[in-house]
């Protein structure tokens, strides 16, 4: 029988209330709890106080606001998967959400919780990194923003400090953009063996900006920066995508584990990056001709 250790529990009634509760050391936010509570059962996490933010409806939104898609930290995975506005501008989020855990977990687990869990195998970190999203962090002195690419300090570690709370994620919406996410896992609902996300902004057949996110393969900041550099300014095409995919596979650092050896994971990175780039480009074309 797995039971968490003794813990105190407080329910936040407002963001300000949450922030004041979070100023105490050894305090963790609980929202979906689908990563934190299993970790508490295993004593991999042993907070003294849990702050339940599930009542903070002001953090549960998904909306397009000017040139940005804004996703509240408390939006559930199922909300993002069902969001038409998110799917229109960033099909990568629908691709990724479709393969996050299972439908029951997605109803309860949150987008912000996934990012804050900072699990190297978690899908949304790479998707948001590919889309060059920004994390909005609230603290008692106000709000600060940090690119998702700099949000994670390492496995299970983020820039969020004591007394701070991830409030939302903002994703810049640019015309001529297409995106996709491709994942291989051992079975439905499992973590990735490897996965790749691509966000392409095209201008007259040329790649104006490229974002490539990689999951579970030890990519720094969840991105393939060298492959992005290669793509920028080049013509869209199969050879270009294959070369970028090769670069992405060369520059990541997968670890051999029960999900497979290193060379297999590099092979997956190359294949999945190429597929994601192809689909992302096809989606731009489809959009601009629609």
């Amino acid at each position, binding site marked *: *029988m*797995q*039971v*968490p*250790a*003794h*813990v*105190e*529990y407080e*329910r936040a009634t407002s963001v300000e209330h949450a922030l004041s509760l979070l100023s105490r050391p050894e305090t963790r936010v*609980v929202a979906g*709890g*689908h990563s934190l*509570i*299993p970790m*508490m*059962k295993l004593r991999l996490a042993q907070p003294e106080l*849990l702050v*339940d933010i*599930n009542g903070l409806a002001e953090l549960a939104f998904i909306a397009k606001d000017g040139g940005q898609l804004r996703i509240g930290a408390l939006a559930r995975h199922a909300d993002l998967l069902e969001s038409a506005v998110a799917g229109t501008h960033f099909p990568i989020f629908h691709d990724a959400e479709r393969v996050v*855990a*299972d*439908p*029951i*977990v997605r*109803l*309860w687990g949150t987008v912000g919780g996934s990012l804050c869990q900072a699990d190297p195998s978690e899908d949304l970190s790479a998707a948001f990194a590919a889309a060059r999203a920004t994390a909005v962090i609230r603290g008692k002195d106000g709000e600060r923003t940090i690119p998702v690419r700099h949000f994670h300090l390492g496995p299970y570690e983020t820039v969020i400090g004591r007394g701070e709370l991830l409030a939302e994620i903002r994703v810049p919406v640019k015309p001529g953009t297409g995106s996709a996410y491709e994942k291989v896992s051992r079975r*439905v*609902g499992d973590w990735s063996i490897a996965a790749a996300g691509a966000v392409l902004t095209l201008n007259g057949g040329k790649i104006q900006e490229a974002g490539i996110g990689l999951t579970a393969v030890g990519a720094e900041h969840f991105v393939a920066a060298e492959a992005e550099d290669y793509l920028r300014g080049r013509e869209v095409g199969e050879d270009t995508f294959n070369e970028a995919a090769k670069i992405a596979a060369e520059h990541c650092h997968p670890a051999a584990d029960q999900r497979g050896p290193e060379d297999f994971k590099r092979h997956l990175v190359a294949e999945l990056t190429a597929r994601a780039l192809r689909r992302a480009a096809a989606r731009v074309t489809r959009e601009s001709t629609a």
Partner: protein
Amino acid sequence: MTIRIAMTVNGTEYARDVEPRLLLIHFIRDELGLTGSHWGCDTSNCGSCVVWLDAKPVKSCTLLAAMADGHAVRTVEGLEQDGQLDPVQQGFVECHGLQCGFCTPGMMMTARWLLDHHPDPDEAQIREAISGQICRCTGYENIVRSIRWAAEHPAGASAEHPGEAP
């Protein structure tokens, strides 16, 4: 240290003093004696513990009872209405949707939710809906048939022909 929590379970109000670390599944089974919901893998993989929290199915081994304070919970005991089995329950009877029965309560709670949102799901939708739940007996075939039966008999067996399988 305990805290006072109160919630509605299958329409009945319950209040208890519990430790904050108490999991919802143990609250339902051990504190309330509603043992229809099963405690399985303890890792939110198997889905035997699925109950509804407000209007959504959740894996109750991965939720604290305290998180359900002030909310409404529905368990498998709440499927039957006025002595009438829910069509989902009837479907599992008609199509032999269970063998050992351990996963069944969770399967049925998810199935009810699916049919409330998609009254006419195809096989792929049913399989997707229950993909977070594990059955070690049936190979899922009869579970899928049972849920299809419920979709085709929304009024249950009373007005239909008992024993008719799709």
